[in-house]
């Protein structure tokens, strides 16, 4: 045995250069996604709106959930748009490394940029959809408040969760393509397990705790209560309420940080081998 050691040598380029790469890859991802489609980008707004319409008619009207609050429809719309972001970001993020196979096999650059650019394209779509929501909110005569600024860190938290999950999934997807099918099912499960179409107050105490372990539920609930429920204090069910203590807020945030750290750890450990495994 020789006493030499293997060293990793992905050359570190400047931060600005990495941002440039991120920008170019994201803009190309964006272009490819809507290439050869007549309506192009309009689809990314239409899809959540159509899903909203269907679910509103079924659950809001047929099952009368719309009667519980005058904000049911807006609440549902916010939930659907946020979940669509999470679902899109993680699905595209998961396949991103394999999809960029040709670049990975021939070029050296920080691999992290690939899932970041994939999740960023989903984030751009979220931005557009949020402006649509803003329109609906204004139409409902909800008066903007200064504490709405808290939405920004909440959206950053949501992006961090989506990125963390994408990093874990994309690393696994290089080895096991089944992850694609499994994640599709898990997303369905997550959709119905999160209080998107029904109010979180419908859940028994233990289920409330369970759903607030999920940082997605927490960010969605916090954004909803910031925007909609200021005049309806009892309806503000957040992580703190579910866990029965103000410190309960920290639990889902802790889960979010854990997910992102785990994702970064796994991804960085496996990235030197991506080129020979994709």
């Amino acid at each position, binding site marked *: 045995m*020789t006493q*030499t*050691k*293997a*060293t*990793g*040598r*992905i*050359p570190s*380029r400047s931060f*600005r*250069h990495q941002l*440039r*790469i991120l920008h*170019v*890859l994201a803009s*190309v991802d964006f*272009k*490819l996604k809507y*290439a050869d489609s007549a309506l192009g980008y309009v689809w990314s707004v239409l899809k959540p709106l159509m899903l909203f319409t269907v679910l509103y008619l079924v659950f809001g009207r047929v099952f009368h959930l719309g009667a519980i609050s005058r904000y049911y429809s807006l609440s549902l719309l916010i939930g659907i748009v946020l979940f669509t972001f999470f679902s899109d970001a993680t699905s595209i993020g998961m396949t991103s490394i394999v999809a960029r196979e*040709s*670049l*990975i*096999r*021939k*070029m*050296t*650059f920080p691999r992290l940029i690939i899932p970041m650019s994939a999740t960023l394209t989903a984030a751009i779509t979220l931005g557009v959809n949020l402006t649509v929501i803003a329109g609906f909110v204004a139409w409902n005569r909800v008066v903007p408040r200064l504490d709405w600024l808290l939405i920004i860190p909440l959206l950053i938290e949501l992006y961090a969760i989506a990125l963390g999950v994408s990093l874990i999934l994309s690393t696994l997807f290089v*080895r*096991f*393509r*089944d992850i694609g099918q499994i994640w599709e099912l898990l997303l369905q499960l997550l959709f119905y397990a999160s209080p998107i179409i029904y109010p979180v107050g419908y859940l028994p105490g233990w289920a409330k705790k369970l759903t607030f372990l999920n940082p997605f539920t927490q960010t969605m609930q916090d954004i909803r209560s910031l925007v909609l429920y200021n005049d309806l204090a009892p309806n503000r069910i957040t992580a703190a309420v579910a866990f029965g203590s103000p410190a309960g807020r920290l639990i889902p945030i802790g889960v979010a940080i854990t997910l992102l750290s785990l994702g970064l750890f796994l991804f960085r450990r496996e990235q*030197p*081998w991506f*080129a*020979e495994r994709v």
Partner: protein
Amino acid sequence: MTSSYAFDVRNVSKSFVLPHHRRTTFKEVFLHPWQRTTYERQEALKDVSFQVEKGEFFGIIGPNGSGKSTLLKILASIYRQNEGEVRVDGLVSPFIELGVGFNPALNARDNIRVNGTLLGLNRRELEAKFDEIVAFAELERFVDQKLKNYSSGMQLRLAYSIAIQVPFDILLLDEVLAVGDASFQEKCFATFRRFREEGKTMIFVSHDLEAVSQHCDRALLLDLGVPKAVGPATDVIDAYDALGRAARTSAVPTT
């Protein structure tokens, strides 16, 4: 810290794990749970050491499957070696396996943008170099066509043109002469001469032994991942010829 070496490669070994029956889906695991996947370690490189000095043109030769491209990918930090150490001093521009990883669904303009940026150009530099890249590749009429409509020769010309227009100290060239026509080869050789004047370092993988002897100072001969000879290019080419003769004679049944 500055050294006179562009590459200092010490005792590098690389192996790939090849499952005999590769199981990438759980279904296969469920259907044949007791069928053991047997793994084979294919050793692509065995204890390879050499140094390339700055400003040197260094050839890597050997028969197909001898590990040349694997070695180049390790030099470019695309693969990671299992053992050994590689020190690089300088900016590397890789040209691997006939290309730089084009996206066939994008046109040449966007591919140049992606690859140029990955290789270190900023937007202003990219704009300034764009016409030069297209002109060198002689693809002015085709810049807005998708790469999937390009012939392999056109793709190669574009890839080479990008690889040499980005800032670099070390150029890694894998089979750049393989599908280009004679006039493009002549153009390549002209750029080689320019790089030599500019003091660039070049690693040149090729089956064209004449080009290797003409342009490379020294060379490395690989056979089944084992370094057989390192030294002045002409000597290494002689060693390669001897290897070929030995293989041919051992293949001839003796009566």
